[in-house]
C-alpha cells in the first residue's frame, strides 16, 4: 500500500506540475496549447539522454526544461503573430510530429525500444536518521502550508455566515456526502460479488446502470430540493470539503512520512517522491507570486483583450512568448519527473491523451487558478487510480472496453461540471459571466 501511495503522489505531483504549465499558458494568458505533451516529451528525452551520457542530473534536468522552453520559443515565434487558432493547430502538429520523430530516429531516441536504465535522482542516497527526520519535517511543512491554504479558503467562504447555520448545514452536507459515498461503496461491493457469481453480463450491467442512475437521481433531487434550501448551504459544502481534504490529506501524509522515514526500503521512489513534492511546492509558490505581480496582470489583460493591452503600451507578443516558454519550461520539468517515475521512456508515453489529461485537470480545477490546478490533479489522479483498479472488479467489461469507458465517464463528468459549474471547482464565477 505504501509503495502504491508513494507512486500515486509522484504521479499527482508530475501532473500537477504539468497542469500548472498549461494553466499559465491557457488559464492566465489565453494561449490555446493542444500539444502540451510535446514540452513534456522534450524534457523527458533530453534529461534522460543527457544523464545517460554522463551529464550531472541537475544540469541535465535544467537543460531538458530549457530545451522545452526553447521549443516554446520556436512555436511562439512562428505562430503567435498569427490569429490565435494557429497556435492550437501548430501545437497539435508539433506534439504528434515529435512523437513520430521519437519513434523513427532510433540513433537518438532508441525508437520504440525506449530508453532504460538511466540515472534516477537521490536513488543512491542512504540518508542517516537526522537527514530523514529533516526530510519528514520538510514534507510536514509543505503539507502544513497546503492545509493553511485550505483554511484561508474556508475562512473566506464562511465570512458572514452565522455559526448556527454553519453547524447545521455542514452536518447535513457531511451526512449527505457520507451516505452517498457509503451507498456507492455498497453498490460496488455488491456488484463485485455478483460479478463473481454466474449472473449474465447484460443483467449485471443493466442493474448497475439503473442503480447508479437511480441513486444519482435521488441525490440530485435531495441536493436540489432539500440541501440548497438550508441556510448557508455553500458554507456547509465548504466545511465538508475542507474536512474531507484534512482527513484524506492526513491519511496520505502518514504513508509519505513513513516512506521517508524508512528511506532505504525503496530509495529511488522515496527520493523521487520527496523531490517531486518539493518541486511542485516551489513552482506553485513561484507561480502564485508571478500571477499576482504586475507581470501576471499583463497576462490576464492579454487573456481578455489584447488590443487593450497594446493600447496601454504592453508588448503583447513578447508576453505571450514568455508565457509559452515558461509554461513549456515547467512542463519540461514535469517530463523529467515523469521519466524518472516510469523508469523507461517510450514514444508511446507521450500520446495526445496526455495533453488532454492536462486540460481536464486545468478545466476541472478552474482555469486561471493555480490552487484549482493542484486540486484538479489530485482529483484526476485519484479518479484514474480508483477506476483503474476498482472498476474491473465491478463492471462486466473487458480491459480495453474499460479503458474507453473510463474516458467516457471523465467526459461525462466534465459535461456535468460545465453545466453545473462552468468556471471549474475553484474558478470565480464572475470571470465567466461578466461580459463586455
Amino acid at each position, binding site marked *: 500500500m505504501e509503495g502504491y501511495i508513494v507512486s500515486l503522489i509522484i504521479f499527482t505531483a508530475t501532473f500537477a506540475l504539468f497542469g500548472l504549465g498549461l494553466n499559465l499558458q491557457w488559464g492566465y494568458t489565453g494561449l490555446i496549447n493542444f500539444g502540451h505533451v510535446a514540452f513534456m516529451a522534450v524534457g523527458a528525452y533530453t534529461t534522460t539522454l543527457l544523464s545517460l551520457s554522463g551529464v550531472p542530473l541537475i544540469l541535465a534536468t535544467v537543460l531538458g526544461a530549457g530545451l522545452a522552453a526553447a521549443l516554446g520559443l520556436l512555436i511562439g515565434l512562428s505562430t503567435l503573430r498569427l490569429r490565435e487558432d494557429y497556435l492550437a493547430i501548430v501545437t497539435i502538429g508539433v506534439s504528434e510530429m515529435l512523437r513520430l520523430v521519437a519513434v523513427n530516429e532510433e540513433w537518438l531516441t532508441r525508437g520504440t525500444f525506449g530508453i532504460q536504465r538511466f540515472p534516477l535522482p537521490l536513488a543512491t542516497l542512504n540518508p542517516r536518521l537526522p537527514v530523514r527526520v529533516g526530510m519528514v519535517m520538510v514534507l510536514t511543512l509543505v503539507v502544513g502550508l497546503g492545509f493553511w491554504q485550505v483554511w484561508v479558503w474556508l475562512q473566506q467562504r464562511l465570512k458572514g455566515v452565522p455559526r448556527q447555520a454553519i453547524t447545521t448545514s455542514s452536518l447535513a452536507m457531511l451526512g449527505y456526502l457520507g451516505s452517498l459515498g457509503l451507498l456507492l461503496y455498497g453498490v460496488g461491493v455488491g456488484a463485485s460479488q455478483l460479478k463473481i457469481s454466474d449472473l449474465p453480463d447484460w443483467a449485471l450491467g443493466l442493474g448497475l446502470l439503473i442503480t447508479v442512475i437511480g441513486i444519482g437521481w435521488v441525490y440530485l433531487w435531495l441536493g436540489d430540493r432539500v440541501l440548497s434550501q438550508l441556510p448557508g448551504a455553500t458554507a456547509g459544502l465548504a466545511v465538508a470539503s475542507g474536512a474531507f481534504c484534512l482527513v484524506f490529506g492526513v491519511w496520505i501524509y502518514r504513508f509519505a512520512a513513513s516512506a521517508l522515514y524508512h528511506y532505504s526500503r525503496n530509495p529511488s521512489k522515496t527520493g523521487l517522491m520527496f523531490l517531486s513534492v518539493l518541486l511542485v511546492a516551489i513552482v506553485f509558490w513561484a507561480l502564485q*507570486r*508571478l500571477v499576482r*505581480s*504586475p*507581470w501576471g*496582470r*499583463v497576462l*490576464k*489583460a492579454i*487573456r*481578455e*483583450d489584447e*488590443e*487593450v*493591452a*497594446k*493600447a*496601454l*503600451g*504592453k*508588448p*503583447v507578443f513578447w508576453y505571450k512568448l*514568455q508565457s509559452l516558454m*515558461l509554461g513549456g519550461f515547467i512542463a519540461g520539468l514535469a517530463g523529467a519527473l515523469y521519466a524518472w517515475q516510469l523508469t523507461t521512456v517510450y514514444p508511446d508515453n507521450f500520446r495526445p491523451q496526455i495533453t488532454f489529461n492536462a486540460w481536464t485537470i486545468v478545466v476541472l480545477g478552474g482555469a486561471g487558478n493555480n490552487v484549482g490546478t493542484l486540486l484538479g490533479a489530485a482529483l484526476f489522479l485519484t479518479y484514474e487510480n480508483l477506476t483503474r483498479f476498482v472498476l474491473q472488479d465491478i463492471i462486466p467489461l473487458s480491459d480495453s472496453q474499460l479503458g474507453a469507458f473510463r474516458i467516457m465517464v471523465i467526459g461525462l463528468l466534465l459535461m456535468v461540471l460545465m453545466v453545473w459549474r462552468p468556471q471549474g471547482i475553484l474558478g470565480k464565477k*464572475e*470571470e465567466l459571466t*461578466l*461580459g*463586455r
Partner: protein
Amino acid sequence: MVDSHGRQPLLAANALSKSFGGIRAVDNASLEVLPGSITGLIGPNGAGKTTLFNLLCRFVQPDSGQIIFDGVSIQHLQPHDIAQQGMVRTFQVARVLSKLSVMENMLLAAQHQAGERFWNVWLRSSTVRQQEREQREQASAILESVGLAHMAQDYAGALSGGQRKLLEIARALMVRPKLVLLDEPAAGVNPTLINQICDHILRWNQEGLTFLIIEHNMDVVMSLCDRVWVLAEGRNLASGTPTEIQQNAQVLEAYLGQ
C-alpha cells in the same frame, strides 16, 4: 509645419490613406494637434474618423502618408510603442477588462513598471512593491476625481456603460500621456455625466494634457474644442475654430445630407 503662433504641432498626420478592399476609408487625410489644445475631429457616420485613430496609433497600417508625434516620425513603431511614447487612445465602444477589478484596470496602464519583467518580481521585489504602492495612490486619486473610487475593488464588468467610458478615460490618464485620443467619449452617456466628463477634460487640459476628440455631440465639441477638423468620406473637408466650422456651408451640407 509651424502654426501662426510659431508652435510645433504635437501630432501631425500628413496625407494618410487607407483602403479596405474597394472602400477608401481614409483618403489623403491630414491633421494637426497643437500642444495644450483640445482638438475636435468630426464627420458623418462612416467618414473614417475611427480608422484615422487606428492609423495614428498604428493599430492599422496606412497605405501611405506620414505621422509625426512629438517631433519624431512614428511610422515604424508598434502599437505598444505609441503608448510608451505618450500617446494613448480610447475605443469607440469602451473596452474595459471586465474580469479584472477597476483598480487592476488602472494599475495595468501605468508605464515603466519594474514588476512587468518577471525576473524583477524576485530580483527587485522591494522596488516592485514600492512602485505598486505609488501607482495605487495615483490610481486612487484619479478614480476619486471621476467618482469611481467607491468601486475600485469591484470587477470592471460590473460597471454601467457610462462608468466604463469614465474608467477607460481614467485608465488612459494612468499612462501619464502627452496626448489622449478619445473616440466618442460622450456616446451613450447621460447628460449629467457628459457635463462631468467635459469638466474633467477641461481640468486635465489645464493641467497640461492635450486631447484629440472624436464626437458627434456638437454641444460637447463647441464647448471643449479650440480647433475642429472635419472629415467626410475619408477626406479633409474643413478645419477651423468651432464657430467657423458651424458656419461652413460645406460642413452643413455634409451633415444634413446632399
